[in-house]
């Protein structure tokens, strides 16, 4: 793979990754900005419309027709959060020109489409086209309503909101339902204009052959924009609550969910990740072997370290009558790590699993983008091999220290309406 990163303008990075084994190309344009209740919904809608229409293909129908003509090429919007930041943008993927049956210039067409989506959207009198905007707004509102359809995901979202209450990280990637409802096409377009000026921008292109068309297009197009990028703070340790807070909500569900959130003041992200793997990320982890296999309490019981926020989550699906038992066992297994009861097999197995995962960076175009975007967000560039070596350097003592730094902060419980036994 040939990797090249260049600056196309103030606060605009362009990374090209050329890997001849692929049959398709993938592009991702990220706008990085601070999560803010006032702008989150508008930023989401403002970038959401970009993937639906542009000035040349002014309706979703016209855009879809063009993309399917290009062998099922796709254009989509990006909206997610990372720590205290909101990440928005546009993604695209298409078949490499070599596989076009009729010799079409697919990549050339995609340069124009992406250009028009970002720099010539379908706008009239300072507002997005009303039809495109209405469609995106309805879609977002429907997505918000549908969050509760996925009970595990909903429980984790509620746990995150409880853990980070009052911090930018608690703001959803869409802001709030009320903010979405009150948004207008004019405000959304203005929010996007602001992102073009002030967001940090990172662009990633993965293709089987070197292709400068995209870099040239972005360079020329951004040259016309007066850029004043703002610094974005992603990383901040979430403060530990004075007392453990439990939030319980009752619903008409079959299975209860429990999400435990711990906080840490440790910056040792590699040791924290090792603790998470050993505790609950894999089928040989302590939670799998004990909470699931030994006590048969849960089908899933997993952990996750969010070092960017100094947070650590454990979540499981469990019978209401067994919640306390499951919680006690989770805490007991964490306690084992704090005591240093970590076997060589657990450490070696975790390292092997990490090695397995990082070695496959580059097996899909998206894996390259995810890797280098994460480096950018962490402001720490390393190769997969260097990354793995940092894990290999984590001693058992560092793991114990990291585990000891974890303090229970809050618990979210989704309860069913059965009478408690």
């Amino acid at each position, binding site marked *: 793979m040939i990797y090249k990163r260049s600056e196309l303008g103030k606060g605009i990075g362009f990374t090209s990754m050329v890997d001849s084994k692929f049959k398709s190309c993938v592009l991702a344009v990220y706008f990085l900005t601070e999560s803010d209740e006032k702008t989150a919904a508008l930023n989401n809608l403002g970038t959401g419309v970009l993937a639906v229409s542009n000035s040349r293909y002014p309706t979703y129908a016209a855009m879809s027709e063009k993309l399917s003509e290009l*062998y*099922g090429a796709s254009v989509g919007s990006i909206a997610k959060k990372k720590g205290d930041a909101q990440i928005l943008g546009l993604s695209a993927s298409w078949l490499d020109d070599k596989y076009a049956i009729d010799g079409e210039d697919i990549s050339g067409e995609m340069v124009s489409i992406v250009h028009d989506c970002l720099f010539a959207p379908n706008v009239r009198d300072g507002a997005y086209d009303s039809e495109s905007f209405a469609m995106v707004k309805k879609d977002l509102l429907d997505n918000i*309503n*549908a969050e509760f*359809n996925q009970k595990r995901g909903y429980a984790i979202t509620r746990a995150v909101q409880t853990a980070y209450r009052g911090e930018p990280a608690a703001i959803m990637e869409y802001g709030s339902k009320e903010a979405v409802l009150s948004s207008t096409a004019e405000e959304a377009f203005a929010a996007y204009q602001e992102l073009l000026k002030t967001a940090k921008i990172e662009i990633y292109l993965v293709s089987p052959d070197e292709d400068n068309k995209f870099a040239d297009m972005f360079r020329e197009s951004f040259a016309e924009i007066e850029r004043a990028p703002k610094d974005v703070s992603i990383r901040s340790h979430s403060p530990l609550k004075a007392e453990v807070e439990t939030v319980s909500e009752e619903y008409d569900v079959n299975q209860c969910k429990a999400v435990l959130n711990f906080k840490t003041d440790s910056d040792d992200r590699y040791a924290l990740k090792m603790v998470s793997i050993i505790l609950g990320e894999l089928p040989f982890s302590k939670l799998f072997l004990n909470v699931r296999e030994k006590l048969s309490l849960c089908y*899933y019981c997993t952990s996750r370290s969010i070092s960017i926020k100094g947070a650590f989550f454990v979540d499981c699906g469990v019978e209401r009558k067994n919640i306390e038992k499951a919680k006690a066992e989770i805490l007991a297994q964490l306690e084992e790590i704090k005591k240093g009861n970590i076997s060589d097999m657990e450490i070696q197995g975790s*390292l092997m*699993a990490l090695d397995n995962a990082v070695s*496959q960076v580059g097996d899909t175009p998206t894996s390259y983008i995810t890797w280098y975007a994460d480096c950018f967000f962490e402001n720490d560039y390393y190769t997969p091999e260097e990354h793995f070596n940092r894990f290999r350097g984590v001693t058992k003592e560092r793991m114990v220290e990291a585990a000891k730094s974890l303090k229970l902060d809050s618990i979210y419980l989704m309860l069913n309406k059965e009478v408690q036994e």
Partner: protein
Amino acid sequence: MMKKEILTSARTGDSCIHVKHSSGLDIYICEMNGFSGVEALFGTKYGSVNTMFKTAADSDYTVVPEGIAHFLEHKLFENEDCGVFELYAKTGASGNAYTSFDKTCYLFNCSQNYEENLKILLDFVQKPYFTKENVDKEMGIIGQEIKMTNDNPEWRVFFNMLRAMYHAHPVKIDIAGTVESIAKIDADLLYKCYDTFYNLNNMVLSIAGNISADKVLEICDEYLKPCADKGLESVFPPEPDEIVEAETREKQPVGASIFNLGYKCAPRSGIDRLKAVSAASIVSSLLTDPALPMCERLLKDEVINSTFNCEVFYGDGYFTLIFSGEAEKPELIREAVFAEIDRLIAEGINEKDFQRVKKSAYGIMVRELNNVEAVASLMLNAYMENVSPYDSISIMSELTCGDVIDFMRSQLRRDRCVLSVIETED
């Protein structure tokens, strides 16, 4: 003696190796240069629908409890001396398994030690160990899995649709069974099912990625235990062409109402099925294409949103085309789909639209060949469906408008359509 052949896609130039191994096992191997990962799938034609079966040696059919194929999959991960995950922990592989309606697959993904991982995979799948204690222990875990899926509205709306569509075919039963049905499972029954379906003549190994075909075959020679073909016969109760009921609704604690709109089509097998799948896929693309008037109007009227989708679902004895998504008034979607199918049959399909959606389908198929996991699945599914891995691309390229119209006219009948809805509680 092994029979070895190289299968090639004339369109993309991709190729893989198919071997009929002397043990009875079919083996598919795809060496993928430049990729780091390896994906291996060891699968059997045994899923939740195989509830009634016999071998040539049996005088009567055996009927087993619902959910037993899935239960067996869970239990095969335990060896007599240790768990399989412990073995994978030593090699770094990510091991897993899944049971679907018509197959059970054991898999690993790794970037190192694939030889060792392949040995683990071939060994444990051929070495069952079921006891009363380890069977009883699994009841609680699978019970929680069943409860979890019962809270999944997509799962419920789908099974409600299948129950309204099929009178007798076991596709309508939940893959994991119920808490009551799995309580009837014991070690003897598991051995009975294992001995019947985990016969190498009924199984496939599919492996793709950074591998050497010669090395894979060498390990297979060493680890595969030859099996006599037992003349397995899996039977299904007679299934009428008609549906059970046209509409089913259930209230659930959901944030957004969802629906499945499914057509009961005639089941098929082999290349015939692949042709029907290709025709159905084109219908699916045409009817969910935002560039075409039906979808454009439904979006504009806010009847559907971007979740509107359509897929072909099929297996032994069942074949359906299912529209799905979030919608407050799915009956309007049913009306629109009925009218659009009538219109397409009466007026024909615009040739430009037809070529466009075919191109799109081709592009998506070629892009799948980019991916180690997708290639391993492609080869496994080809075995399960008794076709060649690259048949889909060639059949799609030969498909005509007439084939698609014929499919719609013969299969997409209004009286064979079921609407299943999960509605928000008041």
